[in-house]
């Protein structure tokens, strides 16, 4: 399998606080990688650096053999919009847009016509079992429904990689597992790579491979022990 993303000797600090202290990570195409570790160990920082949302202090992030750290903000912005999908715990849907419009937004930004974008958006909502919500505003949905819409929006451009930072953290256990199961199912179907940040071991079990972080560095005791593939 080809390497999709490669982070080498990643360092990143917030002022005097180091968050990443030399992390190496490789993600191959279509692979689902879980990043685990205790709260504050640097998981979100790693995800933000890999997705090009944040620059590293030193080290390099290569996407299909190109160092995206050298790219301009607008080039990385475009990369995130087209090749990547991002998913967070909350606050991602625009409250004034309907579910359908929220999901269609990345397509519209890519220049797709309104009607066509709306149609594709509805297909994706259907894929996650929330087709009937297309005309509803986020405020009128449950947390699980909102998160399903957010997942649909992150995947609607059929990105090569999905970055998810505790995507089910705000949901109850049962709904969380359902949503995660759907993410994994669709990702496998479409051959998307997934970087899944979580601090729950159960959720990490959905992944092909698990990487553990501790204090901003790889935790060798966790590394590879749970490899399934």
């Amino acid at each position, binding site marked *: 399998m080809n390497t999709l993303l490669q982070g080498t000797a990643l360092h990143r600090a917030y002022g005097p606080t180091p968050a990443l202290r030399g992390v190496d990570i490789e993600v191959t195409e279509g692979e689902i990688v879980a990043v685990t570790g205790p709260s504050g160990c640097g998981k*979100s920082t790693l995800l*933000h650096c890999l*997705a090009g*949302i*944040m620059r590293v202090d030193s080290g390099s992030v290569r996407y299909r053999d190109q160092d995206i750290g050298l790219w301009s903000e*607008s080039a990385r*912005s*475009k*990369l*995130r*919009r*087209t090749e*990547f*999908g*991002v998913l*967070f*715990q*909350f*606050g*991602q*849907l*625009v*409250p*004034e*847009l*309907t579910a359908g*419009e929220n999901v269609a*937004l*990345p397509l*519209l*930004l890519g220049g797709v016509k*309104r009607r066509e974008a709306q149609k594709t958006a509805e297909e994706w909502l259907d894929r996650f079992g929330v087709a009937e919500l297309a005309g509803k505003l986020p405020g009128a949905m449950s947390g699980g429904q909102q998160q399903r819409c957010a997942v649909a*929006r*992150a995947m609607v451009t059929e990105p090569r990689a999905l970055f998810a*930072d*505790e995507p089910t*953290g705000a949901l109850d256990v049962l709904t969380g597992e359902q949503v995660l199961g759907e993410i994994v199912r669709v990702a496998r179907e479409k051959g998307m790579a997934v970087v899944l940040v979580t601090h729950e071991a159960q959720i990490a079990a959905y992944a092909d491979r698990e990487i553990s972080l501790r204090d901003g560095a790889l935790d060798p005791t966790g590394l590879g022990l749970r490899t399934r593939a």
Partner: protein
Amino acid sequence: MRPATLFRLAVAGNRTDHLRTALTAASSALALVVLLAAATVIAIKNGESGENAHYASPLLAEPGLRPGVIAALVLLAVPILALAGQSIRLGAPARDRRLAAIRLAGATPGQAVLIAGAETVAAGVIGSVVGLGGFLLLRVVLERRNAGGELLLPTDVLPSVLWIVILMAFVPVMAGLVGALLLRQVVISPLGVVRRTRKRGPWPWPGFLIVVGLVIFQLPAQIKGIDVGTNRWAVLVGGGVALTTIGVVLGTGWIAHTTGRLLLRFGPRPAMLLAGRRLMADPWSGSRTLAALLASVVIGAIALGYRIGLVTQFEAWNRYNAQTREEQLGAGAPEGFYTGAVDLIMVAVGIGVTVAAAGVLISLAEGIVARRRTYAALTAAGVPGRTLSESVLWQTMLPLAPALLLAVTSGIGLIRLTGTRVGAPSNTLTVPVPVGSLALLAGGAFLIMLIATGIGLVVLRSSTDLEELRAS
């Protein structure tokens, strides 16, 4: 809640809270100074000949012109007071968290609003005290006489103590009321502060209000026995202006809703979709934030219409006098004497528009900050900052253009319906529409709002901070 507890909770806060307090206090102080100036002009007593020859300016010396000065000053105080109240929305996140925590600790929604309102009132009281000091200081500093020994400003009279006390109480109370009114749109729940967006579509009757206002304004000219300067005259004219202004302000809700619908329907760009949906989600936010601005523009248009009427009237008399070679007929005073009073109102309008734009900036910044998490998530998802800026620009500036047009048209319509023929015997002229100065008024207001929005966009840039994405 005991007053001491209320005070303790109201003054708790961090640096942005102090900034808000400072801004509330400063604008309250300014409002008080302006209102005390108005009260000072009211306190001028007429001399024996009916006028006060010891003032250099006819605006102060002439009893007939003083009401114009008073009106201009009171008018000026309105947007400043509105600004004091609007400051309540500044630095909202930290305050919201505090209010939510207070609710979580068992306070009722009413108590939470009371705490936020009390904070504004407290700042207003500080402002009142500072304002009184500033006013007394200004009286001393500005005591000047011209070569002829006449006073430039009425620094020889003081408003009565009762007036001073009333105004000092009025300013903080008004600021608190405006603030509490603005807080009605947010729900302070124990889990955080949620903004309430009204589902209700725009009312159909702003147009009706404008028409009624126009009609009432005409009555004194149509009905015999209602003389200029009488109470009935003042009620009809003032009521006409007020109804028209309210109609324009409420009409903006309808305009915002309609522009939103059109943007949604025909706007091909994603930024237009965002802007259109937001306009439709809360069409009243435009009315609320633009109220002071639009009111200033309506008044400005009325003043401009009145001014050109005066100028044309003088023109007619000048022609008549030239024909008859007589000088004794017509208005006795020089033209500049009357237009000067109108120009003073225009200065007040200019300041009013600027102050109102500052208020708009505050609510714009607050609206952006309240959505910072969404903006940060959108940026992370690759939505270009340009698209977000563009949506804010569409959302503020697009409804503004027709709203300004409505304000200017209503204001000038009010004056022109009373008649457009003026003149002297055997020589009547048609009052032209002051297109140039009206365009300047509307264009100026638009430009100032554009600048305010530009500053708001800087806030937007810093709101897309990734900090907001961290799961707490």
